[in-house]
């Protein structure tokens, strides 16, 4: 839930910071799970930016969400190292098991692509909520699907 007092705290904490917008947006997303529409004007005002500039920054970066994610977030790496170890087939398997495509939120699960977790020597890799998983195979993909749908 959006809370204007919490937003004010975040804005206050970043006074005097050089280039404060990204740190503020990270904190806002951390607090509210996404960047609420209602936060845009106060942020713009505090930083003496136009609302359009703030919207432009939020929209530029893949991390910032305009709506909350599901209770579980599964990020599967699609980059080349993971592809070389059969990542593309595992992506299809995971999509089928969850009944959703990359980029969709369904049944409380957000499934997203990520382009490199830096686990390229133990590929394929995924990030399930806060947990990194390397050496993915069919069994591990099935276990992830089961875990997040439970």
């Amino acid at each position, binding site marked *: 839930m959006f809370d204007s007092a919490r937003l004010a705290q975040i804005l206050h904490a970043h006074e005097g910071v050089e280039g404060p917008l990204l740190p503020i947006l990270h904190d806002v997303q951390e607090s509210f799970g996404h960047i609420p529409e209602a936060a845009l004007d106060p942020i713009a005002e505090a930083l003496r930016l136009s609302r359009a500039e703030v919207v432009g920054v939020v929209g530029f970066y893949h991390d910032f969400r305009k709506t909350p994610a599901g209770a579980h977030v599964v990020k599967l790496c699609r980059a080349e190292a993971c592809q070389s170890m059969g990542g593309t087939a595992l992506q299809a398997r995971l999509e089928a098991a969850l009944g959703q495509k990359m980029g969709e939120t369904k049944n409380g699960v957000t499934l997203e692509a990520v382009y490199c977790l*830096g686990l390229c020597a133990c590929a394929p890799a995924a990030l399930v909520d806060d947990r990194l998983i390397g050496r993915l195979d069919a069994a591990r993909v099935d276990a992830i699907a089961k875990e997040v749908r439970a």
Partner: protein
Amino acid sequence: MKIWVPADAAARACGADEVAAAISAAAEQRGVTVELIRNGTRGMVWLEPLVEVETPEGRRAFGPMTPEDVPALFDSPDSHPKAQGLTEEIPFFKRQTRLTFARCGKIDPLSLMDYEAEGGLAGLRAAIARTPAEVVEEIVASGLRGRGGAGFPTGIKWRTVLGAKAAQKYIVCNADEGDSGSFADRMLMEGDPFCLIEGMAIAGLATGATQGYVYIRSEYPDAIRVMRAAVEAATHAGVLGADVLGSGRAFRVEIRVGAGAYVCGEETSLLNSLEGKRGVVRAKPPLPALEGFMGRPTVVNNVLSLAAVPWIMAHGGAAYNAIGINRSRGTIPLQIAGNVKHGGLFETGFGITLGEIVTEIAGGTASGRPVKAVQVGGPLGAYHPVSDFDLPFCYEEFAGQGGLVGHAGMIIHDEGADMLALARFAMEFCAIESCGKCTPCRIGAVRGVETLDRVAAGDPTALPLIEDLCNTMKLGSLCALGGFTPYPVLSAIRHFPEEFTPMREAAE
């Protein structure tokens, strides 16, 4: 009894936390006192989780460990099925020249005492004893070039910033390691964070910058956590702050986090992002060295460039320059990844051939099938066929073969690789990550995906268009994203033409 279990993200992704918990439990059960240290990784990722046990002969390695392997570690270590012998005698490790990664995996990453005991801070002390211009010339003499991929001489960049007059200058560390196949920055930040901090402090003293920022990609939560803790510890100990090691000179460091944009690894786009703007590329000139962060003189260096600096200052530029061949001097931390038997980080002098790396050191593919192509330098790097295996690993030599060293990551593909699909992915990735500033990249990448789909459908007119489009992107893009995306595409076409012919479907 001292036991090391890496807390490196790759080790954790392979179950290191579970192994560490099993060790604690087994020790308690047996009434054995264990000092459990969560170190960084030694870089032998195929052996992770790699547990090390202290013995009078040295540290003995066991891996890849599972919780089930833990009881035998206490009960019968000599006949342990996962025993690898002494860690530093493992051929993959022994063959390296570890300068930048000398401490990584060896020490407790957040112990400043361990860091100093293993040679840390000697470079910073040497820099304090000399004038800024002398420090800059030492770096110039070392021959160190930007390890982020561009290969620009680090010392020359510092010289420009030193010579710039401004009330405030900055050191910005580019830790936006987005290239697939690269993980050296992450490993160093997680395994030896003080090394990067020391390198930044030296850069600050050398150029007159008093504020540093490390811009770390958000996909690296572990590195962010370790770096934040290390900055705090270094500040507390007086390594950073108003009076760096009693020198009377100030240098502070702040950690900043990216937000999932590959293009922010490009230095001008990174600066915009750091300023809180869209991560759009800036046209050069002005050079960031003169008008960088907040329009002020700024050194932007990769993690590996800055982390090489403490060794150079402690041992001298000439000692670093003595390693390597031609215009590529010093060591390069290779990252061997993908479909590979022995994947991980291998630091060595420049000049080793691609074939030595892939065949001898890495042991070929994980699948056991023949190697088909090796992509060197990340998603913007070329695909090299086996016929390129005699190519020495150096900046100019790779450029001469239509490739690039990049951040020295390499992804090995076995014969199952679909080169047309990989070429299409290169264009797709560029389209997803383009900042949108210049037309060849923003529109070219989208047209590239469509046109490669036409190639796949058997349209004989599409392939010449791809070559033409790649030429436009190469010559017309503002930065390496649009400018280098043609490298994987064209190299795939050049070396594997049969996969791009209209007869593709029929032939299969």
